[in-house]
């Protein structure tokens, strides 16, 4: 059995579904159903979060092996099984998913008034798929969760989204589906050639040299769309702008990490040679993404769109870190992913606070908010600064490590990443100035109320995390140290092997 003594990961994955079943079974008038759905969803996600803290406490950070493993036979004759487990790379993403879900449910408490029951069910199903995806240690199981995320997210954007929600939902779904089906072919190739889809077993399988490039691009099609990398990022601004606040939080906080996680979990260990060969391509695309989307962000009129473009830029830094193949770069990429999950999620919540009150995301609609809502302005500033990468706040550690890692590979790449940080300061401060400072030009803004107790509760854990990750990052870094070291060692060994074979 595993370190928890019971199938913890399966429980984390499927408990939200039980909550969804309870919500579905409630009868009564709309008010009763809505209240019941909110509370059940909140309690379910809180219980899942508390259970997931066992991972934090019992995870052995000195080992690079998969822990909390569970195995069940599913299709033994095909070498496909239900296999769950976490290592240093995935464990914190499980925690990120379980931590953000209750916050999202709390953030939608009052802003979602129509079809509350369906909304809460969709979020709980989404949590199941996210947690399952990060825990899956079988390629088919992974793919099932990876794709199934699309269904609840499609409904969340399409039903509770803004004016162009239908367009955004379709674009989101079809873009990501198109990428994923090409990955499916690569998975089938590996399945057929290695005779198994078990991920630890696949790590032992050497993909033939000739096939590596093809498989790399099949994976790339899927993960690059999910990350999203330039030039396939265009679904993200649309999806973010149209999604409800909590949908944007999950999208930025967890769903964007799925692509980068895919690169780390599959592309690097399975395709070492192709990864090394195509790293310059990734660098080029990432640097373009960082600089181009930062410039685009400067020109945005819509707050959510601006933060969405900033997400593309930050994820560009993550992909740079991943393809440096060294300890600093990979650790930095992982740390940036976590920090971005917390900070950009919080920024979307900040926009949501204003949107709930004024029902506009237009930057010019605001001005002088700091005078009316001082506490809100403080919170917003904290996360703005974190997003810029101010030392002492979460993003700094990750981005700094990525730049150090990139410098060792190619100073120009490091320069590109650093340029992104400078431009980031530009557009974020510009946003903050226009929203918070200046004269109060619109009279209706004067009536705005500052943060409510519920909103304090939502922001408090995110503030704590942002400060904690910025001031004392070691507890987080220690989780993935061993796994990253093992990954780097594997990568170098594989490259040396192929170099020897080539001689």
């Amino acid at each position, binding site marked *: 059995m595993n370190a928890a003594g019971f199938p913890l990961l399966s429980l984390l994955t499927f408990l939200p579904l039980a909550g969804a079943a309870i919500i579905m079974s409630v009868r009564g008038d709309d008010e009763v159903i809505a209240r019941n759905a909110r509370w059940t969803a909140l309690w379910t996600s809180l219980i899942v979060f508390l259970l997931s803290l066992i991972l934090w406490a019992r995870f052995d950070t000195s080992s690079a092996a998969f822990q909390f493993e569970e195995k069940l036979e*599913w*299709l033994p004759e*095909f070498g496909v099984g239900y296999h769950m487990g976490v290592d240093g790379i995935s464990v914190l993403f499980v925690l990120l998913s379980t931590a953000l879900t209750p916050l999202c449910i709390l953030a939608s408490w009052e802003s979602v008034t129509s*079809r509350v029951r*369906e909304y809460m069910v969709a979020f709980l199903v989404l949590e199941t798929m996210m947690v399952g995806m990060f825990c899956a240690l079988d390629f*088919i199981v992974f*793919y*099932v*969760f990876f*794709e*199934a995320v*699309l*269904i609840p997210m*499609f*409904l969340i954007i*399409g*039903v509770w989204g803004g004016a162009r*929600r*239908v367009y955004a*939902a*379709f674009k989101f*779904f*079809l873009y990501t*589906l*198109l990428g994923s*089906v*090409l990955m*499916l*072919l690569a998975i*089938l*190739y590996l*399945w*057929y050639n290695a005779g198994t889809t078990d991920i630890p077993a696949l790590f032992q399988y050497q993909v033939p040299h000739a096939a590596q490039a093809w498989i790399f691009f099949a994976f790339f099609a899927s993960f690059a769309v999910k990350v999203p990398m330039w030039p396939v990022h265009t679904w993200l601004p649309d999806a973010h702008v149209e999604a409800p606040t909590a949908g944007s939080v999950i999208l930025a906080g967890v769903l964007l990490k799925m692509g980068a996680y895919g690169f780390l979990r599959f592309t690097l260990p399975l395709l070492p040679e192709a990864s090394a060969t195509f790293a310059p391509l990734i660098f080029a695309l990432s640097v373009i993404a960082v600089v181009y989307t930062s410039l685009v962000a400067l020109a945005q009129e819509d707050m959510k769109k601006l933060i969405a473009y900033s997400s593309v830029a930050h994820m560009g830094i993550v992909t740079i870190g991943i393809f440096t193949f060294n300890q600093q770069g990979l650790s930095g990429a992982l740390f940036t992913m976590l920090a971005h999950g917390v900070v950009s999620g919080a920024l979307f919540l900040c926009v949501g606070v204003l949107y709930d009150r004024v029902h506009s995301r237009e930057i010019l609609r605001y001005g002088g908010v700091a005078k009316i809502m001082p506490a809100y302005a403080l919170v917003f500033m904290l996360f703005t600064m974190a997003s810029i990468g101010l030392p002492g706040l979460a993003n700094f550690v990750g981005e700094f490590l990525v730049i150090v890692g990139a410098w060792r590979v190619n100073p120009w790449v490091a320069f590109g990443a650093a340029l992104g940080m400078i431009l980031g300061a530009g557009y974020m401060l510009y946003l903050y100035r226009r929203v918070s400072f200046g004269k109060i030009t619109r009279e209706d803004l004067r009536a705005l109320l500052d943060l409510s107790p519920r909103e304090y509760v939502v922001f408090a854990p995110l503030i704590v995390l942002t400060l904690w990750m910025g001031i004392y990052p070691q507890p987080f870094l220690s989780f993935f140290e061993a796994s990253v070291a093992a990954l780097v060692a594997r990568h170098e060994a594989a490259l040396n092997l192929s170099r020897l074979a080539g001689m």
Partner: protein
Amino acid sequence: MSWILALPELALGCSGLVLLLAGVIPKTETFFPITMGAIGALLLTAVLVLGQGEGTALGGHYVADSFSGFMKILSLGAAAIALLVSLDFNEKEGLARFEFPVLVVFASLGAMLMISANDLMSLYLGLELLSLPLYVIAAFNRDNARSAEAGLKYFVLGALASGLLLYGSSLVYGFAGTTNFDRLADAFSTSQDASPGVVVGVVFVIAGLAFKVSAVPFHMWTPDVYEGAPTPVTAYFASAPKVAAIALLARVLLGPFGDLAAQWQQVILLVSIGSMILGSFAAIGQTNLKRLMAYSSIGHVGYALMGLAVSSDIGLRGLLVYMAIYVFMNMGSFAVLVAMRRQGRAVERIEDLAGLGRTDPTMALWMAVFMFSMAGIPPLAGFFGKLYVFLAAVQGGYWTLAVVGVLTSVVSAYYYLRIVKVMYFDQAVGALDRAPASLTIVMAGTGLFTLFFCLWPAPMLAAAQAAAAALLG
């Protein structure tokens, strides 16, 4: 006493005759009891099929093996569900005549004979026994011009297809000197390369059967017939006859013509690619749900034929799993289509589903499950159907086929999503009538299967594996 082996067919044939008598004699309308009797007869036959032995009978015209068992149970189950679906619809549309279930029973008998055919003669007999009742039930709503047109169109094109099939069969007979599948297989395994006459004959046989499975380029009748026929009839058309025709195609091509694979493979390959592309692109512009389902079924046949095109046991297994899952998804979504009524009148445009997510959440949920499943989104059953045919294509190295398959599945996802969008994102235009209990049962049953297939896929895979092994020996 070799005819004992054909006991299921004999039982079904006799019950069909009994039902016919029982329907004629009473003075009152007997639609409901006869339908129930027909469903009972179909289920009884399915049980007999389960207990059936293996071997050939009736002078080598009839063969029973696990392949025929698998396909027969599938088509019998589809026929039973189609009858269940027709109960309420036919009452409300004034089509409650006992001839309907009796015709479905005889069509199912034809389907079974087709699946068990071991001779070009019994193949043709089975096919005609299936087709004749189908022509009649397509035009069952005889006062309706569209229904009559559907029946006539289907009859004319079906006759053409039969002609092609017979012409092909006679060519094969002329060049090989036998119509028995086993002896045909022997004849082709010894000869070094096939004579052009045989190849032309095989191509004609394929063309005749491609009409029946409505594969491109023999699909033209499908949208019109699907749209015109009464909806439960369309549900039946899209399932049981297709299963039987696909089974026959697999048996003919992999059995007697197995050694000519190099000759027929390209044909099936093109047919499969064509069906997938047409099925995904042509459905985008449709506004009528039944037409949309017609194009969708063309696309699904393309995916299933992908399994046949690679001509391997993994491919055949993929085809069997695909057809089984397809029957469930298809019957479920047709149950929703049949249930679509507003103030007593049947409606069939996509916009008529608008706001169903609010007005009838249960039905909308099942329809969404079927649509996501048909689009091949995991963890629903449709994904696993696609997974196994794609696996076969990848394994055989048919990359073009696999890539076309996944890309068209993304295109087709668009129109399946459009239905979900209409149900959940659009404003309601007025509630649909409540679905009757029989349809709710069908929706829930097929929906639960689609939803939870991922938990226990092993039994169906094992059955498909055994069936594939039986055919390929």
